[in-house]
């Protein structure tokens, strides 16, 4: 008799997100939510401001998630989560994990004041920014997370984004919160592992999650995971964590970095870029990677 071949699941089997959500095909933000909930489990409250995810979970009275959601104002993800945590604790629930779940616009731009306030107080919340590098809900306008060179409806080809992406992780590290991690929808095991680690820590925990958006990036829906993986492999979006604002650990060491051009060329939002532009992006990525290696 042949020996039974057993497949071991590397991710929790529990599904807290049902199909039937309203996201576009190939939406990275949906994968991110699914993996996060696998890690955190059902005893989680989500605070979701205006962003694609304000729509994705479904219109009233539906929701595709088995966890409760408070839909909050655009700039209030952090302050809403702070209030929920305090409210739950005062009514006897000290166990539930409270998550602020916001896009890059809600985090890097309009919500940064509330986020900084919560982080400075070290409020006991997990803040997750799923980064699709623009305001997608309102139709692809630039945010301060939009990378150099990208087209959006407010950075048209004739005047594409000429400033680099804001370094949100450095800003959060400067708050010396207990835990910060980057994660990518292409690396769910790493994402779930770090989210579980974060769940056990008290205080403000911050996740910066790379979430490709075929609609806004003008890429193929079936390339979303591939793009996310390439961004990790070429150090465009490296996977690392920072504890107490100081201790940096790279989760995926790269022996050899792939060229960024492969990643850039798969996306319509970068179509107008010349070889020289791409070389400049490569230089910037190399410099950031060198800085990261030095900080470990």
């Amino acid at each position: 008799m042949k020996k039974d071949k057993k497949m071991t699941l590397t991710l929790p089997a529990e599904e807290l997100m049902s199909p039937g959500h309203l996201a576009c095909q190939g939406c990275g933000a949906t994968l991110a939510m699914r993996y996060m909930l696998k890690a955190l489990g059902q005893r989680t409250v989500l605070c979701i401001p205006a962003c694609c995810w304000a729509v994705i979970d479904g219109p009233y009275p539906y929701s595709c998630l088995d966890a409760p959601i408070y839909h909050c104002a655009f700039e209030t993800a952090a302050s809403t989560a702070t209030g929920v945590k305090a409210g739950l604790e005062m009514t006897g629930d000290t166990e539930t994990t409270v998550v602020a779940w916001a896009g890059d616009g809600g985090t890097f731009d309009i919500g940064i004041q509330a986020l900084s306030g919560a982080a400075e107080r070290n409020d006991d919340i997990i803040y997750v920014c799923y980064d699709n590098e623009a305001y997608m809900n309102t139709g692809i306008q630039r945010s301060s997370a939009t990378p150099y060179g990208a087209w959006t409806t407010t950075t048209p080809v004739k005047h594409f984004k000429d400033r680099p992406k804001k370094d949100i992780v450095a800003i959060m590290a400067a708050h010396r919160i207990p835990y910060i991690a980057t994660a990518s929808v292409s690396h769910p095991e790493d994402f779930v592992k770090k989210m579980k680690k974060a769940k056990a820590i008290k205080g403000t925990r911050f996740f910066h999650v790379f979430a490709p958006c075929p609609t806004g990036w003008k890429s193929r829906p079936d390339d979303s995971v591939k793009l996310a993986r390439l961004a990790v492999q070429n150090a465009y979006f490296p996977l690392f964590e920072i504890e107490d604002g100081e201790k940096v650990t790279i989760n995926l060491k790269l022996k050899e970095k792939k060229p960024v051009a492969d990643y850039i060329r798969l996306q319509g939002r970068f179509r107008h870029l010349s070889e020289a532009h791409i070389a400049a992006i490569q230089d910037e990525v190399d410099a950031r990677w060198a800085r990261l290696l030095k900080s470990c």
Partner: protein
Amino acid sequence: MKKVIMGNHALSYGAMLSRAQVIPAYPITPQTQVVELLSEMCASKTLDAKFIKVESEHSAMASCISASAAGARTFTATSAQGLALMHEMLHWASGGRHPVVLGNINRAMAPGWSIWTDQNDSLSERDTGWMQFYCSSNQEVLDSVIQAYKVGEALMIPAMVILDAFALSHTYEVVEIPEQDKVDAFLPPFKPEIRLTPDDPHAFGGLTGPEHYFELRYKLQKDMEKAPALIEGTGLEFERLFGRRLGLVDEYKCGDADLLFVSSGTAGYTANVAVDLLRDEGIKAGNLRMRVVRPFPFETVRRILGKAKKAAVVDRNISYGHHGIFYQEVKSALYGVKKAPPVFGYITGLGGRDITPDTFKEIAAHALAKDGPDEEIVWIGVKR
């Protein structure tokens, strides 16, 4: 127990006796003592609450709202610029049906920077779906906080307790501090029907299309319409327990008045003094102090003003391009009322300029000299 306290501390005591559980707050003159005392009470465990030192009023209200959604009783206080910064979240609190209670110190809006009283800050938020209680004494401030929770939580509608900058916020008065067990008997713990919890997961406030939104707002208005009776009812219950009546309005010698002032806030107290001085001179004056402005007490105003010979509405506010806001409201309430009296509108005291008994005497002299109003705004005390 009687204590001599400032109006701001009357708000703090009101929140403490109501057993507020989450207090996110941000300082602004002239509100600071409200939150300083509350933070002291939380630190010394006189009050079992979480005091959250948020980085702005916008966040203060956001945290109040979500803590309330999670089932906690919440309190905050602010003034002028802070209230304006909260504007978006004021709609959120009422639209989401979270009975937050907020103390607002009436302060004039900048520019130029003013820390002195007028009502344009709170009246700019008139249409946000909050109840508004305007107070004329420190005792009323404390009592109103307790009543605001009682009515607000019954209807799931937020409420503002409003007092004048300095004229009340920093003025010390004797205040009866009710006993905690009596307040507990009047105000049971907050237990909302639906709350934010993984035990019973719901999505609050998601995308709401034209097929549902309208009904949500209809229900808010229908519940707001229940508020006047509930305010009167809880006001009587309060009187039975504490000996002080908390009604929709405060009537002073209205019954036989030839001239009725319509007033609010601390000016509403000054008006009573003026009524007595005028009566000494043989002029039958009276004063209707508007305590509750939202919900607007239509029936009460029609009943009392319907019997008056003349009414003089005194506004410490203005709607630019229209006229005094109380004046608009009173006139609209009297529309279609047979034998409604002529109603005069006066604007005075903006930016904290004093309103004294003489101000009311000047108003009385003006109103009594005319058969009816011949201008929309009569300015009192302005330098031209």
